[in-house]
């Protein structure tokens, strides 16, 4: 029988250490806690980062478990199941906000619409469940970019790592990857996203993340509608609507077991 491979044991020890620190840990502390030289520690972390098991926070430089690790061994949440569990909350969000509601999940590098509730008025509307939306130009997508480590906007980066501009849909669409990174950092900080006319002229959308019991972001829920209704005179989003959206996201997350109180 071949012997054990030391570097794999060390990598496993580092992963275990990171799993206890969801906020991230600095290189020095990892090195001290694991009793490994900094150089060795950095080599292992870089390798794990390359395969997607570890990621490094752009601002603090701290390391934490990556999306590839989180999706290993965890059952993927079926979009149809998400819809079934979210049905009542999505209805009540539409009814309170008076706007149409969509729930989106990450599908390759776009947002897949898994649920759509009509705006509660008598206007003619058609279901767009199954449709794909761009990540960078929708608030649903920006929430996923901010919270799901696997989310990458389409066309943002080619195989050599060269950064290209993102496709524009209106003159307000964020096309610069750097500007998008600033936006998603802000979304991560706030816990919700909004965009005005970045996908469609005259429309605003507001979204918040849905978490499951492991704390993973499995989707986003949001409202969309006319800029006159969802944006106030100061150009800020209607905070009443923001609170409806965040309450609905929390309620669905609670339904999925994310919040235990």
């Amino acid at each position, binding site marked *: 029988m071949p012997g054990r491979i030391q570097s794999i044991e060390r990598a496993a020890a580092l992963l275990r250490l990171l799993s206890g620190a969801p906020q991230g840990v600095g290189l020095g502390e990892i090195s001290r806690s694991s009793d490994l030289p900094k150089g060795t520690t950095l080599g292992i972390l870089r390798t794990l980062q390359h395969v997607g098991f570890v990621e490094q926070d752009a601002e603090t430089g701290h390391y934490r478990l990556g999306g590839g690790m989180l999706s290993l061994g965890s059952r993927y949440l*079926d*979009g*149809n*199941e998400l*819809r*079934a*569990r979210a*049905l*009542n909350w999505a*209805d*009540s969000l*539409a*009814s*309170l906000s008076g706007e149409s509601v969509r729930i989106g999940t990450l599908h390759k590098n776009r947002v897949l619409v898994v649920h*759509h*509730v*009509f705006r*509660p*008025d*008598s206007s003619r*509307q*058609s*279901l767009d*469940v199954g449709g794909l939306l761009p990540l960078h130009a929708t608030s649903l997508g920006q929430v996923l970019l901010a919270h799901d480590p696997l989310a990458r906007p389409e066309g943002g980066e080619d195989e050599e790592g060269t950064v290209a501009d993102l496709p524009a849909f209106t003159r307000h669409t964020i096309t610069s990857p750097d500007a998008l990174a600033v936006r998603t950092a802000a979304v991560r900080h706030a816990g919700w996203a909004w965009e005005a006319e970045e996908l469609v002229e005259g429309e605003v959308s507001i979204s918040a993340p849905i978490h499951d019991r492991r704390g993973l972001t499995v989707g986003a829920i949001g409202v969309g509608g006319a800029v006159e209704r969802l944006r106030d005179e100061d150009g800020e989003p209607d905070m009443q609507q923001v609170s409806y959206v965040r309450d609905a996201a929390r309620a669905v997350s609670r339904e999925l077991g994310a919040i235990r109180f």
Partner: protein
Amino acid sequence: MSQQYIAAIDQGTTSSRCILFDRDGRIVSVDQREHRQIFPKPGWVEHDAKELWSNVEVVLQEAAQKSDITPDQVAAIGITNQRETTVIWDKETGEPVYNAIVWQDTRTDDLARELGGEEGQDRFRDICGLPLATYFSGPKIRWLLDNVEGLRERAERGEVLFGTIDTWVIWNLTGQHVTDVTNAGRTMLMNLQTLQWDDTVLEAMDIPRGILPEIRSSSEVYGEARGYLAGTPVASALGDQHAALFGQTCFDPGDVKGTYGTGTFLVMNTGNEPIHSENGLLTTMGYKLGDEDAVYALEGSIAVTGSLVQWLRDNLGLISTAPEIETLARTVDDNGGSYIVPAFSGLFAPHWRSDARGVLAGLTGYVNKGHIARAALEATAWQTREVVDAMNADSAIDLTTLKVDGGMTANNLLMQILSNVLGAEVVRPMVAETTCLGAAYAAGLAIGYWPDLETLRANWHKAAEWNAEMDSAKREHEYHNWKKAVERTLDWVEH
């Protein structure tokens, strides 16, 4: 004046709930308690009537308190309930003489056959619209009178009272012994024309009239509540399927609602005259608003719809959760030539064949689990089509829109298939809790919280809509195949 709300109590088969609604028909607060299912013998199902009542009391109080709604903010209480379930209790002490016998209980199987005599199960159909079957309350009352010691004598002396669950809740809440036409209509004891207890049936079933409640409309003040909401008018009662019809605002003849759960209940508003079905449907009450003319309905229930999906999950392990049926079914474009007829305990409306058993037909080496998942969803749609065809034939009104509710409406593929096979629009309303909403609407109308049906119609909003995307030649071809599969279920059980 502070904001006012309507409280709807839904005393159902597995739980009691209370939902508070605002003037726009939106849900403001919900509370729910489950109760025990008692199975003394195979086929027997009972509930502890006192437990039902104490749960109702708790949810009524909790629903208000958890949203900081004070008793004086509750303008009226409406009631909807599991139908046909039968309670008899002591008039003085309020103590039930026996557990409530639940609608699913089949202990009256032999008794129902006996009561039919030579004329068979349709003996009372012209009077009450229903065939003799184990579900309905009349035979259950008779069973209690025959089997609970001394009960017949106490009944003759006027010491006990009978009620379906609406009556039991209203009696405990207000002290009044009343029922509404929709619940009375499920006992087999009410005459559909006079809306009063029918002496012919009472005599044939040997049930003393004195134990029966007074039959009232579905929407009027029966009395004032006691307890936490003391003084609040109790202003509506509707059996659950009737409440859903009302909550879906099916106010016009030809309007149909379908509730899709483990089984499916389809109810069509047929206007102010009862229609006796030639096609295996039940004639039942829609609702009656105060002094207005009663509205009648045709009902067709399908025993196995959502439970077929559960069967694929639990017995075959094809999926791990019910919603995954849609994911699996979407891996293919059609049923691959396969059809499932889930006649697990025979075929119900409109066939009524107890000798039938389920089939999986049209199998070839090509069929995979995706095709079977699709065939399972199509089974719900074709069974709906058969009931809707029967409704169209009986009422001479063609369905144009089906208003759906219930858990299975989360399945978008099923809703699309339903629209395809019906060749009609399928719409899901924004408030999925149509049963409670119907009870709230009826109570709110009775006290003037809502002025009229038009206001209620304006409250109704589409959450989603599906339109037929199947050409009629394809639809007829598939229906033909479905009918062939149905034929193959017949004559399986040999008596």
